[in-house]
């Protein structure tokens, strides 16, 4: 699965895509492969304020439970509800249909220091 070039990647395998003042957050294919079959997704509710580097939710698989973090701070404006009914979407399509949440941010510059697709692919391709 190709790693999209329109976003940034953290060392803890989250991806961040900026559109204006909205940042969409997800986890990478490498992360979903490591987790194995995802069985449950729970993000913090819409309206929650997230501090930079703070936890935004949890993803569970048959094997383990993992916290998801956001490098950038903001307010949760939308959560991908379809994952509640079918968490396996996250395994199948982590970069598109498997997005986790959307944050409204004042300043997305914290993302500038993250890896681009090429750097991430070199590490975990």
């Amino acid at each position, binding site marked *: 699965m190709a790693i999209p070039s329109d976003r940034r990647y953290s060392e803890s395998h989250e991806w961040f895509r900026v559109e204006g003042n909205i940042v969409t957050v997800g986890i990478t294919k490498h992360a979903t*492969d490591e987790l*194995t*079959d995802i*069985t*449950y997704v*729970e993000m913090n509710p819409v309206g929650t304020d997230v501090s930079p580097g703070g936890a935004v939710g*949890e993803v*569970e*698989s*048959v*094997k*383990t*439970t993992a916290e998801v973090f956001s490098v950038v701070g903001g307010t949760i404006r939308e959560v991908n509800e379809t994952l509640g009914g079918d968490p396996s979407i996250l*395994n199948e399509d982590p970069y598109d249909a498997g997005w986790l949440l959307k944050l409204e941010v004042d300043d997305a510059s914290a993302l500038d220091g993250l890896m681009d697709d090429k750097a991430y692919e070199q590490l975990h391709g």
Partner: protein
Amino acid sequence: MSSTTETGPRNTPFEKLHERFGGQMVDYAGWNLPLRFGSVIEEHRAVRASGGLFDVSHMGRLRFMGPDACRFLDRVCTRQIHGMSEGQCRYSLVCNEQGGCRDDVLVYRMESESYLMVCNAANRDKLIAHFAEHSPDFDVSIDDQTLATAMCAIQGPRVMDLIGGVSREIPALKRFRFTIKDLMVIKVIVSRTGYTGEDGVEVILDAKMATPALEMFLKDFGENDSMVRPCGLAARDTLRLEAAMPLYGHELTEDIDPLSAGLGFAVKLDKGVEHPEVGGFIGQQALQEVADRGPARRLVGLLPEGRRSPRQHMQVLDGDRVVGEVTSGCLSPTLDRPIAMAYVDVACCSPDTSLQIDLGRAKVPATTCELPFYKRP
């Protein structure tokens, strides 16, 4: 020693097979093993519905030989080894003096004065040291055959039918019996045992012959190949958890005794009484004391509400009071609901007791239940 810290994890004799089927490899107890080949849940369901093949070459295989082999094994095993007939396997614990579990093992009675023990990979070096410490008074030689051999498990309701196509003897084996087969020029030990809750076999053979034997085996299945699919460690874990089989490091540790774990069937507390030539076993006195006063906690099943899976070390609560600790948990692919095993105070461990599990982000109600969660039909 099997230390591989400088060279990285050791490959098993089935490494080419893992590569061929695209296994996602992980380091498990110093061995390079497939976590999964595709979806874990699909592998799990394949084993429940038809069949799965697991590489379990990482398990330790120790051979005991000599006039005192039986007497020595009776010293270190909680189960009685004396009286086992050739071709029989027995599940046993190896305990410390305090009655805690050093490991859980399967003992095979081979020809006279010869036994084979299959132990957990992570405990192999520890057990070898333990046996060396306790064997000087016995005329027994202990040979670690782990690296010279390979082992795989073929498990599922269709497996015996499929094996029936190549052998009439194997499907006629009773549970916990084995036979030694000459498959062309390859000598293999086939036992009707497993760790999935399904019928099936475990196969031990020469390491060099592992890949050719399996290719022959799979070829013989012909068009039925898909009836047995390769499975990884992750499915092995969810399968054994549904079947409530203990996993060392989770349900069993050096601090947990087998009686609390519900493994009383494998502890012969009166060993040496009926047959005085059989001595007592290490930990016998401590376990007799546990039996006399009764365990403080017992291993129980927990059925949590909702979809979240409890994990090892999460606390079990009765209101504000901590009454137990989760040892294993997952979303059961067969039951399509979360399940967990936990040690719970005996006061709260009768079936249908309402408790809670602290999942970190929330506390969820959970009801105790009898084990196992799954029994094959």
